[in-house]
């Protein structure tokens, strides 16, 4: 009773649960334009997951995997998985795991199917991220069991917590659930001691699970955006990609059930008030007050539905520095980033580009 009353008062006054505050970008997250100003990268159709293999970089683009030497130079198609690739992972031995809606397949470094591995009989759809743990098993994040991955905005707006993390033994094909009812797990990092760090997008946090799947705690919380994949840095730390920004308006819409349902029923998904991988391409997208162009200029601090952000973290998950592409930029929706050859490589999924930022220039 008292709780209901307090909730009602909160709703009325916009306090507590109903507050729509969004953390500011400051400290190590202070905005810059490094990502936007980086030299022209590799043009690729919806590049998504980027991994470092023994021979260079591999990124997914639609249903194909592309190989790219880390020192630069021309890339080449490595293989065609036959269906849209949603996640890939590379082991230290050169084994490639490729997830598509059909399941997880294994390939060797040259792109030919690797024999002797299997993903078992589990239906492994909607895989968002994978990582090999030191013992050779594969940790798999399933974004949502309710919505297909391309409907991730619906998953967010419906407030689904239908994600899970699995462990798969590629040798036997046996799989076990480590954690479930997660808010769109979207990235995995394995720490040296075998614990698993998962980015939980809809909760805007990173959580740590022990090898058996027990929740150990949050390592980062209240991020200013929705986190995506995590990869290791050359300084024993991590790179965290943030694929979309949070905004007060979206937080507000998430709390407005009637409007949210009507909008989802009547409006095409690309015009929803929801985070996006790119924005500013159609005049039918929602616009916020601060984004009104003055004297022909869109201010870089304008409210936006899409943003480009990669954060470097220490081994203890403390932000060190960040690379941004701000409102009005093209390199938004960074879904994965890896460090290789002195550069940070990042995929701008709907910007159709793989960007390389020279890390030598940035110091540290």
């Amino acid at each position: 009773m008292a709780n209901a009353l307090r909730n009602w008062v909160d709703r009325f006054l916009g306090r507590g649960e109903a507050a729509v505050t969004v953390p500011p970008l400051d400290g190590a997250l202070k905005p810059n334009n490094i990502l936007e100003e980086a030299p022209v990268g590799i043009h690729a159709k919806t590049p998504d997951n980027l991994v470092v293999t023994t021979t260079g970089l591999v990124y997914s683009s639609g249903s194909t995997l592309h190989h790219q030497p880390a020192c630069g130079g021309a890339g080449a198609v490595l293989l065609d998985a036959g269906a849209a690739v949603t996640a890939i992972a590379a082991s230290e031995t050169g084994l490639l795991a490729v997830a598509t809606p059909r399941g997880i397949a294994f390939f060797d470094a040259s792109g030919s199917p690797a024999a002797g591995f299997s993903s078992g009989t589990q239906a492994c759809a909607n895989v968002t991220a994978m990582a090999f743990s030191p013992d050779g098993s594969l940790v798999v994040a399933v974004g949502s069991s309710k919505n297909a991955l391309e409907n991730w905005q619906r998953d967010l707006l419906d407030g689904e917590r239908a994600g899970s993390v699995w462990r798969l033994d590629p040798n036997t094909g046996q799989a076990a659930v480590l954690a479930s009812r997660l808010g769109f797990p979207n990235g995995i990092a394995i720490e040296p001691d075998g614990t698993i760090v998962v980015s939980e997008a809809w909760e805007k946090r990173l959580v740590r699970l022990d090898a058996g799947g027990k929740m150990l705690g949050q390592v980062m919380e209240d991020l200013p955006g929705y986190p995506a994949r995590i990869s290791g840095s050359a300084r024993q730390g991590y790179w965290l990609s943030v694929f979309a920004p949070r905004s007060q308006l979206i937080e507000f819409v998430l709390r407005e059930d009637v409007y949210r349902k009507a909008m989802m029923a009547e409006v095409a998904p690309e015009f929803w008030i929801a985070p996006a991988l790119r924005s500013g391409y159609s005049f039918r997208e929602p616009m916020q007050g601060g984004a009104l162009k003055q004297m022909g200029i869109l201010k870089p601090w304008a409210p936006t539905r899409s943003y480009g952000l990669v954060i470097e973290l220490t081994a203890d998950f403390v932000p060190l520095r960040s690379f941004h592409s701000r409102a009005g930029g093209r390199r938004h929706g960074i879904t994965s980033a890896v460090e290789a050859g002195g550069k940070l490589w990042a995929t701008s999924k709907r910007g159709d580009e793989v960007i390389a930022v020279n890390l030598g220039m940035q110091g540290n």
Partner: protein
Amino acid sequence: MASANTLTKLRYRFIPDHVIGEILSKKWIDNAIPFLVLICVIVVFGSLIPNFFSGSNLSITSRQLGEFALVCIAMMLVIVVGGIDLSVGSNFALGNFMTLALLNLAGWSVWTTVPAVILICGSVGLLNGVLVGYLRLRAFLTTLVTLIIVRAVVDMLLLKYAQAMSMSFYQSDAWDLMGLGGFFGIPFSFCVLIVVAIVGHILLTRSRPGWRLMAIGGSRRSAHNIGLSVRRTVCATYTISGMLCGLAGVLYAARLSGAGTDTGMGLEISALTAAVLGGNSLGGGRGSIVKALIGAVIVLVMTNGVLRLGLNSGSGPMVLGLTLIFAVFVDVRWLKNRDKLLNKVYVSPTYIELPEPASTSADSGSAFALNDRLKDVEIIGLADVESPEDVILDDDDYLYCGTRHGDIVRFAPPDYKTHEVYAHIGGSPLGMSWDKDRNLLVCVGGMGLYKIDRSRTVTKVTDETNRSKLSVVDDSRLRLADDLDIAPDGRIYFSEATIRYEMHDWPVDALESRGNGRLICFDPKTGRTQTVLRNLIFPNGICTAQDGQSILFAESWACRISRYYIDGPKAGTVERVLDRLPGYPDNINRASDGTYWAAIMGMRSPALDVALRMPGFRKRMARRIAPDQWLYPNLNIGCVIRFDDRGEVLETLWDQGAENHPMITSMREHKGYLYLGGITNNRIGRIKLEGRDTSWSGYRNYWGRA
């Protein structure tokens, strides 16, 4: 779903939410809390004390109130100017004593005594005024000193004359009337109070001296900087305060005919309490006669009530003290939070359901289909002009536009590379038109309708219209005159987009989407300005139809264009011309082939269209999140459409990338070219039109060859 919608619709049609914000923005709302306290005090004491509402009690109370409230008004005046007058009690006693002394001992008549006493007490006030105003002594200390000195003088005089005074007894009809009588059953002193209060209220709120007084109290330095004579005004205020005390003293003398050492003792505390309780700010600059009166009634009812309840002697001041601290607390909270509250409740959206927009997709085959015809627009005056909302050309091909700096800038033909400030008006010049004599008429946001004649002299045409009868706020002043056009007979029709928002936050009106705008007519023959249509949803562009029988007006947030007949059989009626627009129409102008151009300043987004049906959602959004984050209409891209009298859209000119003209608020066809203006742009655009009459100009089309 449908019935819920109907309910929402009805609720927003019949419950006017916006009135709350308007009431809160009125100055008199400051009195709300003191007034509530007043009601409470009267109810509490009225129920506790028998015969409280009886005629005799009311008569006695109002007679006392007459004296006390005059002192409170005296105190209030000084507080408003930023000072304090502690000598009111002693001064009051002096007035009382002098009245009795002059009447009884000196044998003066009432007619000479009263002015003399008022002057004597006024001179005490003058002394305060000179010390505080001219010699810049501290008000508190100075008046404390006069409190003591005047009290001492009264005591000494009493010692000397009290016996003589008590021996004699003055009597006359006028004196009896003052002390015991009244008019129409209203005690004399109360009548005096009413007169003083009315005169004082008018002086304070409607006259220059009153405004100066408020200005000095509000900010002494600023008042000095704008050239007000601070010292003289402060001095005069203390003098008036003294005179009011004298008047109160006279009335007290007439009522009780007795002078004692306790006369007016502690009166300064009661008066100060009353002034603060009424809501007059001790810091100055905020106060009114009404506040003083409310405070006076509260204090008087309480002190008398405590006395009549027979509580012991300390309880009267105790109740007074507690009430005072409560009043100060509430006053501070109110002052601090009033603007916050106003900000939160001012935006009050209403229900609007827009019809499905016409399709704009490139392959839809509709007249709105996307194209890139504005892509190669020539740019004029890049970074030289800011916010050219409207552009216009004269017959010599000069190009004129307004800027947000309040200038009218003129570009010279043929290449429009050089420009000059044609005239400076101020405000934000918006829509423009030529009249028959080649004067440029300009709607200026924040100012009204202005005229620039051929010698470049700027004159005001009109800045107010008739006030609507049922409006809480004064809507006679023009806030956002937007676009105009001139009928063949010379009448000027112009739109006022909204009466609730100023120039800088006009897009917020879209969140409300209420009919906040109006269509106004200025008739140069009679010089009168008259509102002809109200409750229009952001009326924007105005254009006289080609036949001169009607004017076309665009309602931006309703995405439609309508026609208002000004002549002929249908005069006075409104007819829809065009709706289901995919964007928000702005200015309308004539095209060379008998059709019309209309600028679409922004496009509808489906997410906002859904929100428009949910006023509660928009209201909460306005309260919860920062204005920068509010969902707006998409005003970053626009287009130009051409339509005819039947409401058929003939063509659309787009710039899909919106590189050169993020927003298009107006366009003019002139000699085969189309000129584009945009309110958030820093440039003017020009594009060659194919197959148009290259000799056509707007001026000639309206007024023939000059």
